[in-house]
């Protein structure tokens, strides 16, 4: 790597029209997994270049406006969806990836899920608990303090208590810089998130890492056994148009472009996949929102958006009768308007109750397996046809979410099916049956895609081993949500950070020990 790039964040516009470089390691993507791997590699003295599709957007640029922030913070400007447009898939872009816009929920993968991975895929995962603990300490993970639970979350908590359901407060990665503004999903203007952008990128750059922004990797070059370089294009972030190209050769490649982007790039690059495992097995953890209407103001946009969960209907055994995680949630006006049913004055009448509305979301620990393949540029082809068992879980989730909001004090509840259903009584709740769950009814949102290049002991069962190392390309590792062999039924960021740490250390060990030998650094 040239000294001019050492320890810097470089915009694609600056690097254009052509960048040719070499490094010890190229890290593709700077979300939770990529940033953590980058941090681990840089602190071991390896010269690394991280490539980020989005821009470097700091707190001073987070202006809390949906029309300005959504196009910059979300892949495909927030328009990413399944090919039939029935599930909206919100994935981050920008230095820090989805940790820029997520709501900072921290939950480890449940023990029964880890046990299943061990039993079915031969993963040992030794030391995983210690790695979780180290990551949680680094990110200052804590239970959301009681005095930071906002009105919307108190409604869910009251419902949980009234019904005697299992649930409680969630854990978060924020610290006292957080001003409880509630704008988490639009990026934190106060830098209160202890996320990849704040906790990992600065020390990695300080240690010499380079971050190239506004750059998309189009192909990982390889010879069938070794990755040799990555090629891609540089973009003007103001209009999102290509303005140049780059090629970076490296001794090793860490692919961390998310469960959708990484799998698509794997396929587009023609990387070896004799068992057809890349891009399949996609879990989306799809969620559907339910709206409670109250007599008194809730103003759910103020304060920590998500701090309370209901786990009464969340079991982890395969084929479990209950696979629904219920969590509070809220959106700013434009996001809320998109989810509410109808249009025109009828829709506006619901919007006029925005300040007196509560929202909770039912997310399904899904067994449906979708598929990712390359599309045109950023526009990936994501197929996901929800199976009947998961549709039944959606119906269960809508019923129980409605029941919780009513028990929490809502006068009535709007379930945004097509057409919408208003719920006021127990009898109304029981009418929310599986036959009402159809494509676009409700509109699903997914923020936790997983599992498209899973870990496995055997090359027949997955794409990488448990260190994240590719089964067939010796110097390629994967470090994102692709790795998770199944849905984990909750927010995956802490697990992805943790796996990123393990991957980063494995790559560093391999390179500093001289393995793999005779790599292709220029």
């Amino acid at each position: 790597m040239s000294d001019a790039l050492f320890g810097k964040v470089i915009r694609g516009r600056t690097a254009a029209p052509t960048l040719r470089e070499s490094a010890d390691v190229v890290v593709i993507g700077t979300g939770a997994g990529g940033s953590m791997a980058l941090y681990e590699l840089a602190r071991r003295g390896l010269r690394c270049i991280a490539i980020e599709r989005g821009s470097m957007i700091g707190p001073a640029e987070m202006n809390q406006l949906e029309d300005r922030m959504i196009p910059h913070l979300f892949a495909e400007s927030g328009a990413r969806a399944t090919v039939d447009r029935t599930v909206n898939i919100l994935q981050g872009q920008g230095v820090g990836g989805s940790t820029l816009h997520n709501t900072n929920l921290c939950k480890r993968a449940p023990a029964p899920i880890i046990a299943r991975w061990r039993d079915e895929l031969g993963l040992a995962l030794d030391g995983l608990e210690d790695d979780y603990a180290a990551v949680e300490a680094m990110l200052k993970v804590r239970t959301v303090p009681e005095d930071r639970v906002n009105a919307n979350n108190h409604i869910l908590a009251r419902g949980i208590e009234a019904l005697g359901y299992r649930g409680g407060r969630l854990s978060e990665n924020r610290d006292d810089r957080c001003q409880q503004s509630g704008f988490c999903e639009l990026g934190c203007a106060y830098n209160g998130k202890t996320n990849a952008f704040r906790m990992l990128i600065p020390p990695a750059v300080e240690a010499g890492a380079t971050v190239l922004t506004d750059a998309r990797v189009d192909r990982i070059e390889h010879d069938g056994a070794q990755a040799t370089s990555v090629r891609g294009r540089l973009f003007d972030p103001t209009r999102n148009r290509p303005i140049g190209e780059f090629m970076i050769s490296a001794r090793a490649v860490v692919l961390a472009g998310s469960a959708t982007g990484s799998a698509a790039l794997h396929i587009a690059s023609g990387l070896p996949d004799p068992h057809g495992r890349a891009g399949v097995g996609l879990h989306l953890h799809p969620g559907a929102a339910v709206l409670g209407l109250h007599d008194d103001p809730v103003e759910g946009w103020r304060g920590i958006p998500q701090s309370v969960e209901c786990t009464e209907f969340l079991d982890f055994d395969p084929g479990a009768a209950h696979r629904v995680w219920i969590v509070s949630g809220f959106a700013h006006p434009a996001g809320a308007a998109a989810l509410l049913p109808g249009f025109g004055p009828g829709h506006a009448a619901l919007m006029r109750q925005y300040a007196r509305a509560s929202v909770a979301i039912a997310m399904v620990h899904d067994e449906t397996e979708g598929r990712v393949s390359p599309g045109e540029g950023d526009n990936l082809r994501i197929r996901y046809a929800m199976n009947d068992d998961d549709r039944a879980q959606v119906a269960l989730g809508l019923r129980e979410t409605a029941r919780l909001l009513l028990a929490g004090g809502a006068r009535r509840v709007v379930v945004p099916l097509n057409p919408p259903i208003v719920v006021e009584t127990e009898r109304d709740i029981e009418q929310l049956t599986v036959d009402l769950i159809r494509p676009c009814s409700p509109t699903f949102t997914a923020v936790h895609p997983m599992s498209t290049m899973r870990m496995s002991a055997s090359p027949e069962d997955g794409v990488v081993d448990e260190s994240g190392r590719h089964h067939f390309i010796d110097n390629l590792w994967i470090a994102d949500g692709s790795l998770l062999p199944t849905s984990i039924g909750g927010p995956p960021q802490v697990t992805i950070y943790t796996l990123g740490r393990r991957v980063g250390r494995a790559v560093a060990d391999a390179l500093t020990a001289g393995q793999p030998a005779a790599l292709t650094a220029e």
Partner: protein
Amino acid sequence: MTRVRATLHAIREFDLQATSLGALAGSLKLIDGRATSRAFEPFDALEVEITRALAARICRPSDDPLPDDALDRIVRFVEDYLARLPEAQAGIFRNLLVVFEYQPLVFGPKRRRFTRLDPGAQDENLERWATAPQTARVAAFNGVKTICMLGWYSDPASWDAIGYDGPSLPRTPRPDDLGPGADL
């Protein structure tokens, strides 16, 4: 006229065959690649007219029409938003605008372009999209609605009516020609 004929053909194909928005886009691209090739160009007059008419019905908060300046801002937002989308996505959306415009001309009941229908008939037409048995039509309507709503409810002019007080830490936006990020 070529574009009109192609669009009419596409509408028939859409109602008869499309089972997904992807299928619609594919068929439209075969018939009329122009929209995709224009993905990064500004709206033409027809696209402005259609977007404005759709936003006027979708976003209006009451029986009173939205003010002209609010509609202007929504149209500008939609245009800017599309310019940032991947080319394929932007092309689909621009084709969709034309489908929305000519679909009522073909299928009635009043046999006029969307922008030439009276407001009540426009609402009835949009309601048919929103509640159609075909997933692709509902998804198409949801896509148009989402972008228009993003434009309208990001406008401070819409906030008083819903009791929303806006950003807690207002900032001066960076100039558009600079874009986000910095070399550090």
